[in-house]
């Protein structure tokens, strides 16, 4: 049996003593695309933050294995170097720092970590020009400061562009669809789809079903009140679109304490 890229067991986490994730179980195998859906405040973004190692979250129980290693032991930059990528819901502006320079520094850190030679400026530019077309971004963006003065859509496309350059093993896309118009949504989804390979995986976090019209997930998980309350295939997303989340929220509290009905359900791989 293949090794899972990500295996989350009974993960509980919170902020300032307030529990947010209350026992998450999830297993992602190479080649899979998983979607996590859920109402506001269900813990979707917290899950993304905990996986990426953002400061300020307390892990109270459970474990997370990433490619067989204990993910929670790794510093955020080491997680990134090991191929875990987070497309930010709110990409951060870094004034005065050239986008190309930033991305080259990032890629070279990852390459160094893998024991690969660093790319020089020319090699990097060749690579980048190739990838930027994938996202239909203007090359002018490469000369601008990181995310500074970008429109909301440009910021999101830029995240996926970075993902294309860094070629992660596991990409976590945190509400990448929010703030995108339909054309941008198609471009971003198309980019993400093209980056799909048998040896990598994607975890797509979204509030709305419409993203999943373009990024077809193998599994859809519904997160409610810090637990995965339902797992299904893409039909589940359509059902949610139609019925909303309410019908799923009541059983959530009934299942409390057992890890939820969805625990382990995504292990078909």
């Amino acid at each position, binding site marked *: 049996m293949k090794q899972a890229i990500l295996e989350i067991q009974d993960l509980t986490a919170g902020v300032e003593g307030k529990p947010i994730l209350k026992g998450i179980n999830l297993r992602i195998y190479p080649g899979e695309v998983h979607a996590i859906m859920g109402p506001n405040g269900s813990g979707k973004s917290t899950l993304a933050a905990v996986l*990426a*190692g*953002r*400061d*300020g979250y307390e892990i109270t129980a459970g474990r997370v294995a990433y490619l067989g290693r204990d993910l929670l032991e790794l*510093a*955020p*930059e080491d*997680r*990134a*170097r090991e191929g875990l*990528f*987070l497309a*930010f819901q709110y*990409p*951060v*502006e*870094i*004034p*005065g*720092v050239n986008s190309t320079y*930033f*991305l080259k*520094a*990032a*890629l070279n*850190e*990852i390459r160094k*970590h893998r024991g690969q030679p660093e790319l020089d400026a020319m090699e990097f530019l060749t690579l980048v020009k190739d990838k930027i077309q994938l996202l239909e971004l203007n090359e002018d963006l490469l000369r601008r*400061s*990181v995310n500074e003065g970008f429109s909301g859509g440009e910021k999101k496309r830029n995240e996926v562009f*970075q993902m294309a350059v*860094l070629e992660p093993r596991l990409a976590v896309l945190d509400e990448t669809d929010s703030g995108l118009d339909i054309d941008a949504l198609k471009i971003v989804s198309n980019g993400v789809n093209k980056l799909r390979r048998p040896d990598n995986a994607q975890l797509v976090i979204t509030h709305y079903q419409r993203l999943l019209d373009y990024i077809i997930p193998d599994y859809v998980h519904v997160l409610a009140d810090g637990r995965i309350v339902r797992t299904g295939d893409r039909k589940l997303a359509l059902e949610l679109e139609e019925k909303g989340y309410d019908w799923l929220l009541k059983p959530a509290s009934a299942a409390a304490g057992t890890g939820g009905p969805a625990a382990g359900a995504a292990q078909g791989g």
Partner: protein
Amino acid sequence: MSTATETIAGLVRKEYKYGFVTDVETESAPPGLNEDIVRFISAKKREPEFLLEWRLRAYRHWLTMREPNWAHVHYPPIDYQDSVYYSAPKQKGDGPRSLEEVDPKLLETYEKLGIPLKERARLAGVAVDAVFDSVSVGTTFKKQLAEKGIIFCSFSEAVQEHPALVRKYLGTVVPYTDNFFAALNSAVFSDGSFCFIPKGVRCPMELSTYFRINAANTGQFERTLIVAEEGASVSYLEGCTAPMRDEHQLHAAVVELIALDQAQIKYSTVQNWYPGDAEGRGGIYNFVTKRGLCKGKHSKISWTQVETGSAITWKYPSCILLGDHSTGEFYSVAVTNNYQQADTGTKMVHVGRNTRSTIVSKGISAGRGQNCYRGLVKVQKSAAHARNFSQCDSLLLGDRCGAHTFPYLEVRNATARVEHEASTSKIGEDQIFYCNQRGLATQDAVTLIVNGFCKEVLRELPMEFAVEAQKLLGVSLEGSVG
């Protein structure tokens, strides 16, 4: 304390790289300051009578002055009788006639500082005057420059070889009456650099002076005088380092720039004097007066400074825009970490018509550092259509440091246009996390963010030095993020 903060605090602060001491025999004046010391220095340098007289007038004037206390810096009173005012590596016989005869230990010192002086290893395209404690130990590329009529030599040599020029310009931009430290410098200055670019000549290479304090308990008082005649242009750079010592040392320099019609002077500083240790022990008191006179029409003087060193920095490189259509610029990055204090900025005095000035100041405070921008934009009645743009940005790292901005505007001509923008920001945890998530370690992230913040200033530096300055910023802020 959050985990990231702990990690950051745990990063080891890199040692000051230039803190070594060179073991050379020195010849020093006894500590203390009086007319005899002034005469001693002047005699050592076999100076003409006019200069000794000027020094003595400066000294007598200094006695009547009080140390300024308006700056936002704090330090215990300085005992001016405690310091040594002259120290020079001992010379055998008459002293070296050329660089090849300079004490190998001194050459080695500069080599270690990354400033090779020997013929073969010299920095390409940069002429260097190396000042060690009170004297210049040598100047490179002199001959090549002389062929173009450019004079670039130590101040002492200029006094001997070109006394008329020195007499004509010395003290014309910064008179010895200007301020306490300028008066002190005028009385006891020991060496420095002299540059003269004749009419119509563009200096073909960067000129630079590298100042090194070595001896203990010694003040360094150098003077730099740069004159660019009509249509001439020059780019000049100074660098400074000092050994690590527990006592504070005083550095009070004076720099005068004079630009005649259409002349351009670009003056860049990378100041890396020993900043003191993490507890605030030791470090240089850097009390410096720098001023440029745009005397001619369409002349231009541009100051760029990257101030990372010194326990205390007190300096305001300024421009007097006398000539019509003249331009003054000031680009500054000042970093204060640990217990460093900086009170720095500029004065732009608009006298001529259509004069323009630009001020871009970037202050970075970390640790318990205090960083203060103080700037004056003065538009005199005569300065019709003067324009100024000022931008002062402060970046805070951690929550125990301070940033202060004191802009002064005096506008006496209604046609003038003066703009001032200011901002203060804290280096964001979200910025650092974003970089972390892309694989960059926290220290590299800080360096990246800080360099981005300073970009508008760094790009004003000559290429080779911009790279050095970027590295220096990273090192100065190591272990400083909270």
